[in-house]
């Protein structure tokens, strides 16, 4: 069973030879080939080389196009700050939609228009060309709340939910359509799995999530599935209060941050494939191999059969190789449902 087959089998609830291993690697991957992160996010060839090297070195079951949350906004014309060796970021004081009326004049960007979205599409194509059918190529898009926050400014958006829900609805509609176009271009280039990163959804609370964000996610995931894509939902932070809702959305893989106890996740999502959620800094980067093994063993026990090994969020830069290898070894040496605590 190769990596691609393993991931698809887990998603389809078929027997797997071992637990899949699917951490998010970005700066950690760039460091594997010694390129600055500024190069990684701006040249798909660097990203591809880094992903292939990282996936090979740590026997990771996917190769991913994930890099930073600013690609779509860049192609819309948003102001983004770039750094030499860290991810690009938004300055809220210069948010594209600081003036809400601008939304009405925004045109959907062309994912093949030669911008930063196109760079990611090229990454998906080259990854597919290089990896063939051995590993699944993971495309990446921003989730509705995260992208809305990128464009509007997260502080403003959080107040808009209460002050101007009609505007938020219009913004979410725009974002979902943009992300579906981006996903389609990546899928046509070779992505078989689509990651949806929505770091801001955990901030808004269950009422707003149910009323405004769930419908947007639902429209997004339905659209992704209609393209034949498998899907991975990653949300940073505590989603303890929206676990059932996350399970109801229809994503194939629910990727959980370390603040969420997997026992609670499993209770609320009995039939979903859970991924995670070793604490990135405290355990994976700063802990010992023993800490990593203890933590991932507990994750495996709590999650049960439908489980994929990963960290709670991006594997941090400077994570010791032996800690990553400890995660891998756990995945390699366990079949779903056969997890016991390592003494």
């Amino acid at each position, binding site marked *: 069973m190769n990596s691609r087959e393993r991931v698809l089998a887990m998603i389809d609830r078929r027997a797997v030879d071992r637990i899949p291993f699917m951490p998010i690697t970005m*700066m950690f991957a760039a460091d594997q080939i010694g390129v600055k*992160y500024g190069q990684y996010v701006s040249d798909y060839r660097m990203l591809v080389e880094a992903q292939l090297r990282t996936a090979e070195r740590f026997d990771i079951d996917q190769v991913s196009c994930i890099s930073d949350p600013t690609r779509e906004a860049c192609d819309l014309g948003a102001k983004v*700050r770039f*750094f030499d*060796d*860290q*991810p690009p*970021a*938004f*300055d*809220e004081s210069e948010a594209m939609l600081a003036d809400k009326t601008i939304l009405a004049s925004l045109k959907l960007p062309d994912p093949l228009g030669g911008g930063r979205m196109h760079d990611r599409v090229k990454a998906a194509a080259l990854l597919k060309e290089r990896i063939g059918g051995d590993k699944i190529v993971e495309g990446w898009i921003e989730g509705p709340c995260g992208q809305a926050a990128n464009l509007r400014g*997260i*502080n403003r958006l*959080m*107040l808009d*939910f*209460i002050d101007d829900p009609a505007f938020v609805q219009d913004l979410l509609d725009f974002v979902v359509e943009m992300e579906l176009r981006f996903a389609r271009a990546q899928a046509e280039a070779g992505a078989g799995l689509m990651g949806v990163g929505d770091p801001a959804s955990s*901030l*808004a*609370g*269950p009422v*707003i999530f149910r009323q405004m964000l769930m419908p947007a996610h639902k429209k997004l995931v339905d659209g992704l599935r209609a393209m034949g894509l498998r899907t991975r939902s990653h949300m940073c932070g*505590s989603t*303890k*209060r929206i676990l059932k809702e996350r399970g109801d959305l229809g994503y194939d893989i629910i990727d959980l941050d370390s603040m969420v106890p997997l026992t609670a996740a499993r209770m609320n999502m009995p039939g979903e494939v859970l991924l995670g959620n070793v604490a*990135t*800094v*405290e355990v994976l*980067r*700063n802990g010992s191999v023993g800490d990593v093994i203890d933590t991932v063993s507990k994750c495996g026990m709590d999650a049960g059969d439908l489980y994929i090994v990963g960290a709670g969020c991006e594997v*941090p*830069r*400077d994570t010791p190789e032996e800690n990553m290898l400890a995660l891998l070894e756990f995945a390699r040496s366990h079949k779903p449902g056969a997890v016991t605590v390592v003494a």
Partner: protein
Amino acid sequence: MSSIKDLYDAILVGDAKKAHSATKAGIDAGLSPMDLIQQSMVPAMDEVGRLFEAEDYFVPELLLAGRAMKSAMELLRPLLIASGQKLGTRVIIGTVKGDLHDIGKNIVASMLEGSGFEVIDLGADVAPEEFVTAVQECEPRVVCMSALLTVTMPAMRTTIEALESAGLRDRVKILVGGAPVTSQYAAEIGADGYSENASGAVTLVKEVSSAA
């Protein structure tokens, strides 16, 4: 006394207009600014913090409460200054150099203000020398630094070193926080404290400022 309760309720539900009108009514009725702050605003923001920690309130509710509190402070601040009364302990807060993520810092700033502290918010991407200048000019008792990225955390150490070089380190207590920050890291870089959440940060500021 209804103004006290009205202001408390307005902040709790995040209604800035009602907070403003309740504050005005309280002033007109002869309540002192400190009465309104101590009997309405501080307990209201304490409750907001409690609800946030319990995950009954989330970021929108917290920002709304902060906005309501600020609308009350717009009326109270000039009166406090005119009467020569001091605002609470002065705290400087900012997200460190290279890091543009500010929502966590904003939440802490808002809750500190609601707890009666005088907060000077330096914003995001604040260079060490800006912290130094702010400490020289504003003479705070506490400096709070935030970082969301592991790659920007080292700027906390650099900022502490800059304060040491400027001879200011002993004048302030330095607290750090943010998703990748740990108590171990705080100790390593010589910070005086660390909190993993906003309400913990407020408690910590209270502790170190009373001990300073």
